[in-house]
């Protein structure tokens, strides 16, 4: 069985700045595997431990993303693959899915793609559905539990939505996105981290994937990117004791008509 896990590198927190050319400046913020993708990776590794075969960590990014792919290998991925090209720098989620789909087709023998429900920086959750449609495979998103996964057969999962849990089945190959609740990702041991420290994963470019500029052009043009409007200046409620403060607070809440 061949499982591909799609990983995105993101800043650890979102205290990013905006450059004059409207690109995001995450300088000085530690780069990590998108949290939800780490759950996807753990799920892929667990099923690989059960069924054997391969679990490939795949990422789209510049050469410094190799760091996250090495971490994936240290956690238990059997293979890593970096899709890297200057043409990949400003991909929207559907174009990113187009790049990943081309790589998955080129790999040829993939049974299941797992990824996080969304990235913590872009937050759209569009990548997994777009990838499934481009591959022509069924999709199961927001999965909180895999009930059954048979190589060459059935995938049966629980989708954890806002207020219901759906149990859904489909045939492989398929694309699955996972939520945080699905498992507890392992910490790679120091020994394993050392063992993969010098691994150089293969790198595929746009040309290797047969992608043209038209495949990668975003459907929309970014015209403005600004920080959120500042919140109106707040007010500290003072008083000689807790009871007075509480009374004044409730006065204000009534005045604001929020209770």
């Amino acid at each position, binding site marked *: 069985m061949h499982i591909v896990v799609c990983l995105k590198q993101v800043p650890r927190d979102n205290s990013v700045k905006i450059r004059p050319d409207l690109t995001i400046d995450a300088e000085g913020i530690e780069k990590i595997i998108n949290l939800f993708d780490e759950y996807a990776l753990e799920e892929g590794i667990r099923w690989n431990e059960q069924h054997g075969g391969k679990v490939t960590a795949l990422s789209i990014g510049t050469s410094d993303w190799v760091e996250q792919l090495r971490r994936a290998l240290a956690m238990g991925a059997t293979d890593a693959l970096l899709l890297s090209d200057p043409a990949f720098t400003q991909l929207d989620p559907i174009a990113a899915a187009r790049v990943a789909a081309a790589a998955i087709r080129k790999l040829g023998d993939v049974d299941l793609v797992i990824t996080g429900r969304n990235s913590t920086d*872009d937050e759209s959750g569009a990548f997994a559905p777009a990838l499934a449609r481009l591959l022509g495979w069924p999709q199961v998103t927001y999965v909180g539990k895999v009930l059954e996964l048979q190589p060459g057969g059935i995938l049966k999962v629980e989708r954890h939505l806002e207020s219901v849990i759906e149990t859904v089945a489909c045939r492989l190959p398929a694309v699955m996105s996972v939520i945080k609740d699905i498992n507890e990702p392992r910490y790679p041991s120091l020994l394993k981290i050392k063992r993969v420290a010098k691994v150089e994963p293969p790198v595929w470019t746009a040309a290797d994937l047969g992608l043209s500029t038209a495949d990668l052009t975003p459907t929309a043009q970014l015209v403005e990117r600004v920080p959120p409007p500042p*919140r109106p200046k707040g007010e500290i409620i003072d008083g000689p004791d807790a009871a007075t403060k509480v009374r004044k607070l409730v006065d204000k809440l009534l005045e604001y008509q929020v*209770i």
Partner: protein
Amino acid sequence: MNGVLVVLEAVGDDLAAISRELLGKGRQLADALGGSLAALAIGPTKAIAARAGNFGADQIYTVDAPALRQYTTDGYVAAALAAVKAFHPTLILAGTSFQMRDFGAALATDLGAGLVVDATDIQVVDGAIQATRPSHGGNVINTYRFATGTPVVALVRKQSFPEAVAQPDRSAPITELTVAELTPRTEVLSVAPKAGAVNLTDAAIIVTGGRGLGNKENYYRLIPPLAEALGGAYGASRAIVDDGWVPYEHQVGQTGKTVSPKLYIAAGVSGAIQHLAGMRTSRTIVAINKDPEAPIFRIATLGVVGDVNEILPLLTEEIKARLNR
């Protein structure tokens, strides 16, 4: 191309609030585009389709089939494609739920359309669709302009627009569309309500507790009763979810839920950047914390410096007394 198509959602036997918002905004955008406003009811939503006429739709489409009784990506995309073929919309609007994210991204991919998820504003500027959406936990607000000539699928964040006002005398013609040979590749085996489900995203008032409460017992002794007195829901910071005090379901923040209630009370929550990401657009934010330097005070509308264990019981009592609860 022809105007705006709103994908309807039902709650019980009524139009969902988000659908009324989308019909209101859709009306305005259709007028700006010089087109008409259509609504699409898929599967069981057909029962309330006619209501869209009261709220401004010029044309209503329904698509029903046994395979559409439950949501599947294939079924809903096929139904939407039938409506696109009939109406040729410039803009397709739906809400931003998990199910609609699954649907909207798939539909946009199939159509080769533009896509915006979690839009908080949509405008027509010089004939082109422009959409604004937050990213990076609300720290970045992006505005995109879409090329004309290609349709756009926009998923809209709840409570971004005022709801359309009902016009009881108004109605719109209903056209039934069909989809041929629909066999979704995913099979829904069961749908069960989530045990102890909390729809934080829909709550008008949220009371959130953090590590400042000291322990799990204090959380349950103080936070749910205050939420209940206010008729609201209760949330939790990531720190106490990770420590196992409260289920993940309640987590507010970058890796939990993004909420925007009219009142958000943060008690014993320091205000880590990843928490602020999930609640900073709340209308009124109350912070209660013993540390006057806690970052939460920087975005709070009202702040109380003090011990949550002393203040919360008093606050719950005061609210019950003043609201006669």
